């Protein structure tokens, strides 16, 4: 009964696709797939929101893309580079092209804000620069610029564990953009924040990624926020994509199909 609307997806774009996923399967235990053959193309600009109930594999899908989780089968192409099966240096070079923002920020709490932001360059700088914190001047200036952009310029030398949740997520966004990513993955970036801060952080994420021309895939629980900021909604349930289209096409019956039940609407 699930209504799949793949045809309406705004993938046809003169910029081409940033990411192509074909037949992605992930099984944590053999025979019990969490992702049951995902096909997804993501345009090279704008926000794509993935919605769906908890435990449906949204987070696994994102983590398969930068290989924090090892996919079982399928293909993932980032601007033509096949990501599955990459190892060692090649995998690291691919990862630095993919920024990630985490639900619980995942800042290194005992390092300063500046070190956390600069750690976005770890995929680029040589080891000795990383250990000695001797980053190239351009990196440091960009880090300051990003800290300005996320509204935390005077916090550069504070330790990350001294920040509030909203502030930490702003640093998390700065760290991800520091990579100059070709795509940004955001895994429930607002779920640990209060409603007002959540909107502010999402607004910031949308504004900065638009300014830097970075496409975003975002896992999000809040359907209203997803509709407000995304240009495309992907609805997942039980490890499969069951809705894919612009926010204005998302109807009540789709939400019922995605989340199940109807009383809650």
């Amino acid at each position, binding site marked *: 009964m699930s209504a799949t609307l793949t045809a309406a997806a705004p993938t046809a774009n003169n910029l081409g696709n940033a990411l192509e996923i074909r037949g992605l399967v992930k099984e944590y235990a053999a025979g019990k797939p969490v992702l049951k053959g995902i096909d997804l193309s993501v345009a090279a600009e704008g926000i794509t929101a993935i919605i769906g109930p908890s435990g449906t594999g949204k987070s696994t899908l994102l983590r398969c893309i930068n290989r924090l989780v090892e996919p079982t089968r399928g293909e993932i192409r980032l601007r033509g580079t096949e990501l599955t099966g990459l190892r060692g240096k090649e995998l690291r070079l691919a990862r630095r092209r993919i920024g990630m923002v985490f639900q619980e920020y995942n800042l290194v709490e005992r390092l*300063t804000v*500046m*070190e956390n932001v600069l750690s976005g360059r770890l995929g680029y700088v040589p080891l000795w620069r990383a250990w000695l*914190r001797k980053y190239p*001047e*351009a990196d*440091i*200036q*960009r*880090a*300051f*610029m990003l800290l300005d952009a996320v509204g935390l310029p005077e916090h*550069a*030398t504070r330790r990350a564990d001294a920040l509030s949740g909203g502030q930490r997520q702003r640093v998390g966004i700065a760290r991800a953009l520091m990579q*100059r990513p070709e795509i940004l993955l955001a895994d429930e970036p607002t779920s640990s924040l209060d409603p007002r801060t959540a909107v502010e952080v999402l607004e910031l994420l949308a504004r900065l990624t638009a300014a*830097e021309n970075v496409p975003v895939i975002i896992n999000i629980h809040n359907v209203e926020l997803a509709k407000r900021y995304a240009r495309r909604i992907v609805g997942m349930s039980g490890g499969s994509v069951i809705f894919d289209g612009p926010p204005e096409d998302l109807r009540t019956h789709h939400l019922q199909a995605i989340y199940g039940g109807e009383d809650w609407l």
Partner: protein
Amino acid sequence: MNSMTSPSFSGDPVAPLRREWTRHTPGQRLSRFAVWLCCVAAVVWAVRSIDIIPEFLADAPEQMADLLIRMWPPNVAHYYPEVHHALIETLHIATLGTLFCFVLAVPLALMAARNVCTIRPLNVAAQFSLVASRSVNSLVWALLFVAIFGPGAAAGVFAIAFRSVGFVGKLLSEALEETSHGPREALRAAGASWGAEMLKGVWPQVQPAFWGIALFHWDINVRESAVLGLVGAGGIGLVLDDAINFFQWDRVSIVLLAILAVVLVAEVIVTRLRSRLL
């Protein structure tokens, strides 16, 4: 690549806006440098003045390998009865030493705990004897007791006991000082004697700590008692010393294996008992 941030360095119009970032403030850097300097200076001093003969150092890996080759295979024939009996004696020394240590440590801990014993000079005296006991190593205690009792296991038991008193007494008195005053007051208000107050008001509060300390120290004492024989205080160390002095390396290795096994078994027993008791 960096199109958004910095144009070229020369003639940069926003140069005054450039911000500096270093990991540490100059003060921090200075103090870190000072600490590192001290560490390096200490090591350099040690290396330069210590009596290390370069030929020995160069020779060391070869000699160690030679030793290990001569130790292999261990000669199992040496195990029974000699090593076996020495092992049992070692365990007796460790266990009796621990028991005896508690006989000494409990009164000292009661005297050292400021909430139990309110007489200041007694506190200080008890604390001092605990510190003195800790500062003298078990082998040194063993030397002293060998001088007193003559060679044999008796010296070992006393060495173990006197060495662990310092640690056990300190830990016990700390546990005593952490007990809450409420239950004791309640018992005193009900007219309980000092003994009953201790037994029913304080003992239940320190009991878990007590068993934890006892098990922990028995484990340590098993390790320690294995070497006491080197100075003549009984146990398996005596056999080890013997074997080494006669260059019977296959006997040395069986003794070492026996010690290793006992130490590991003791550790397993203690971990099991602890998880059951606490």
